[in-house]
């Protein structure tokens, strides 16, 4: 018995506590909590401002996102937090008090011997970053193969590319410079998520930018609810926008430059209100495909044809609409092997009264909606989900699931209570039961999730390097939260970082890890997914179910098709797997 909570028992125990404790509210038992919020304790002090003015501008309830990245190459995850501002500024933009923030992590020893805890300092001012647009999201990747991770910020307005000049340190501090214009990666439309990928397998990271609608302050219009009261618009009120695919042309005398290949890619012809994106090889042909979460429109699965073109096959492959043929309001997104069969499955978060949706891969890139069978349907109906990811909370080898929530339409009860932004909802945690696909609602194992906020972005990664996955949550018009995992590191784990010969994280690589007992775990290297956010590119393997410590073997599929084997890997640590240093295997064409 794995301790599945039976609702009646919870009710019963709650009754006991209430009777014993009188009317006092019981403080949640933090020592037993699987996640706790350590934002303030770690120095991560940040509050998002959405600039709401009472006009119900569409974009003010959409952001923000966050990134976990190691910008200073010191081996721990730093934090980039996207900020908003007034949508109709009364002062020049460069005089606005709000801007995106960069926090450096300097791990400190924790009270437990050998353990560390995150300690953040705001280094925005000395970083060279000066991102004052109305921020939406962020993605990260090393676009110039110099071994230092760069940052791309999506805005409601002009997007920005920030190059990490790590090799040109100034007073010991890493300096970012704005290379939007020189790289040609600007986009003035309302962009949401973005992702770096090497779609043409040339060794340079390309960029996919998801665009939403053509809403602008100039074409703002009222979108009252059915009773006539003011409300935020939905995506159907404005024209959808086409996404953009930028191909990295590599380094030149002028620096890194990108070429807009959206037309050749097919995206220009298919505008849709997009919000989330993952880049993943769904049919295992060796070419990275692109899956886009669209809001109240068919999701798109851009199948990479290997010649610079893509074809949207979402409908035929079964992941455009839900089992009943409904285009849902897709927002957050992730792709991972949730059923342990070696292929990637897809997950999307949706609007209140829609279920979140799990599409299970049959191994050939054909999907079927298995939401109900997995137990993920009914529990999600009462929530509007945004950031999400599969991650192994307890390192038992099965990927669990977190969704962060917040409404987009006024919750009348909160409005009646006088709340300024009555969109607050609690977040949800689901634990994977294992072998037979199914999830149990574990939200009550982390009392912090019951704290209702207007959650949007969520970035997943191991911020304290203790071998389990933590979660950075961005809340609209609210504080950032750092949900630190309290249970994962109790079980066996193994971490790897996949590094190319240029020294960068090899986004798009796939690892198949074999354990001494014959278990196999497949994970992909990525920063994409979730909502408006960027995740830890390192891979964490929870090995609890394999039950043995020993040596492990990793078969790596590099983005260029090359395959290598790395043997004698040890648990309980992170190890670098460097391209070209493993044993070559038969490679894909």
């Amino acid at each position, binding site marked *: 018995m794995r301790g599945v909570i039976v609702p009646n028992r919870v009710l019963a125990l709650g009754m006991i506590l209430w009777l014993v404790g009188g009317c006092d509210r019981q403080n949640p038992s933090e020592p037993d909590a699987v996640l706790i919020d350590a934002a303030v304790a770690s120095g991560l002090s940040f509050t998002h401002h959405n600039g709401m003015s009472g006009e119900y501008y569409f974009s003010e309830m959409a952001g923000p996102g966050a990134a976990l990245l190691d910008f200073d190459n010191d081996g721990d995850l730093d934090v980039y937090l996207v900020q908003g501002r007034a949508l109709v500024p009364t002062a020049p933009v460069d005089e606005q008090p709000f801007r995106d923030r960069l926090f450096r992590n300097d791990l400190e020893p924790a009270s437990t011997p050998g353990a560390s805890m995150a300690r953040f300092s705001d280094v925005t001012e000395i970083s060279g970053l000066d991102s004052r647009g109305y921020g939406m999201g962020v993605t990260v990747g090393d676009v110039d193969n110099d071994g230092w991770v760069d940052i791309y910020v999506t805005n409601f307005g002009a997007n920005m590319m920030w190059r990490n000049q790590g090799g040109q340190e100034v007073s010991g501090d890493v300096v970012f410079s704005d290379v939007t214009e020189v790289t040609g990666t600007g986009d003035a439309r309302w962009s949401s998520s973005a992702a770096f990928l090497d779609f043409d397998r040339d060794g340079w990271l390309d960029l996919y930018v998801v665009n939403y609608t053509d809403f602008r302050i100039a074409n703002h219009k009222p979108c009252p609810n059915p009773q006539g009261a*003011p409300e935020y618009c939905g995506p159907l009120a404005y024209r959808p926008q086409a996404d953009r695919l930028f191909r990295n042309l590599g380094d030149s005398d002028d620096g890194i430059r990108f070429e807009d290949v959206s037309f050749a890619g097919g995206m220009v012809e298919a505008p849709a209100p997009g919000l989330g994106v993952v880049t993943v090889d769904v049919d295992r042909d060796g070419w990275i495909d692109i899956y886009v979460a669209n809001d109240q429109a068919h999701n798109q699965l851009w199948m990479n044809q290997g010649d610079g073109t893509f074809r949207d096959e979402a409908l035929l492959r079964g992941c455009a609409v839900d089992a009943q043929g409904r285009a849902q309001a897709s927002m957050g997104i992730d792709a991972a092997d949730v059923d342990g069969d070696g292929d990637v499955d897809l997950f999307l978060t949706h609007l209140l009264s829609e279920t979140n949706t799990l599409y299970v891969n049959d191994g050939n890139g054909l999907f079927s909606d298995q939401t109900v069978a997995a137990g993920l349907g009914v529990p999600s109906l009462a929530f509007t989900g945004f950031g999400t990811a599969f991650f192994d909370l307890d390192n038992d080898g099965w990927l669990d699931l977190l969704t962060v929530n917040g409404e987009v339409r006024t919750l009348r009860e909160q409005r009646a209570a006088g709340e300024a932004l009555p969109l607050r909802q609690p977040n949800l945690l689901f634990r994977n039961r294992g072998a037979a696909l199914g999830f149990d609602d574990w939200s009550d194992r982390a009392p912090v999730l019951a704290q209702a906020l207007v959650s949007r972005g969520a970035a997943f990664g191991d911020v304290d390097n203790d071998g389990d996955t933590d979660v950075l949550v961005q809340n609209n018009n609210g504080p950032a939260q750092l949900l630190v995992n309290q249970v994962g590191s109790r079980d066996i784990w193994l971490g790897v970082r996949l590094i190319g010969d240029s020294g960068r994280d090899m986004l798009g690589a796939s690892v198949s890890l074999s354990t001494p007992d014959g278990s196999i775990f497949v994970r992909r290297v990525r920063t994409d997914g979730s909502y408006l956010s960027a995740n830890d590119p390192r891979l964490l393997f929870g090995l609890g179910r394999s039950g043995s410590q020993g040596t492990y073997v990793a078969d790596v599929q590099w983005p260029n098709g090359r395959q290598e084997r790395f043997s004698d890997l040890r648990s309980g640590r992170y190890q670098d797997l460097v391209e070209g240093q493993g044993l070559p295997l038969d490679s894909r064409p």
Partner: protein
Amino acid sequence: MKELLERFVLLALPGAVAWLGVVTIGCQNPSTRVQLPHLVDADELDEPVRRQLLASRDAVTRLQTAGDQRDQALGRALGNLAMVYHAYRDYEPARRCYRQAHDLDRQEFHWAYLLARVERSLGHLDESDDAFDEALILRPDYLPALVWRAENAVDDNRLVEAEEGFRRALEVTPTCAQANYGLARVALSRGDAESAIEFLDSAHEQQREATPILYSLGLAHRSLGDAERAQFFLERIPTSHLLRRSIALDDPVMREVHALELGATAYEHRGQRAAARGQYGLAASELRQAVILDGERIEARHNLALALLHLGRGEEARGEIDEILQLHPDFAPTLVLLGRLLQRDGELEEAEHHLRRATKADPASAKAHLALAELLVSIGDRDAARLASERARLLDPNVETKEAATAIGGSGS
């Protein structure tokens, strides 16, 4: 010991809750035994909606104030109020009012059934099941109750229960497409695509354009390896959200609820939906109602003008356009529309004036720049036309395609 304690509480809990309930009700003044939902944003509601809500609430409070404690009367007043909330998809207050109505009058089918529907909309399937069960005791053959009760079960992966429910619905109405579709969902959940196709074919015979049936047929054929059949059905799925067709299931009780929806917004929504389906007569009628109720609804007025043009009622359309531009002289979509009409009528100079105004009013409107470019071509100013056209494509590479497929429901700019 802990288990014993838990068991004791589990056994004692229902009784304890009932006791607490009695105490609570007993402590209340009879005139406050009914609790109305908060009235939120009353001043901001469409006037007819506000009046409708206030009147329905007044009916409840009048009964209370008059000391009329007849359960049936109070239940009816609360149920009627719940239906008003329900009509506007305001489910939480609707649920609370239905719940109280149902508690007061358990013999009234409406409150049990509608409570079940609202609980389902809120994702409370257990509560919905209970209410459906009570409704079905009162009217065992009410087809929508049978179907939606079974839908709850299939949504909750209770496949045996779902199958029984759908089969019972088919006993009542053998041609029920949604029940056949439900049985297909059950079969698909069990991996039995062949049986699913049989049920889906039956459903498809009844409702040939229903999107869920077409989509499931596509996936079922795909899973049997028949890619050609799969593609045949999947290609018929409409890409537009507005064009999706649900499976029709006549529900007289829900018709009563929908009939309560009033107000400019409701008319406007219905008008847009009708226009998207090409039903311009209906669209014009609905949008006209929206404009009568709220003359400031500029989007509705603009769409009304478009619908009238589709109907060949150009003069009326021009009247609406003039009204809009009096209210909002810089409303770019209407300036573009007017420019195009003037161009069509050969009044090129005036057309250019309005189109230039549109590009100035909304410089980011690709549609306005494109319309201007087309006009400039017609008057022979090719250089200026090229510039305007380039500007339009820069703003939106798809503008020409979109323009060709003129969408009445969009923002128009």
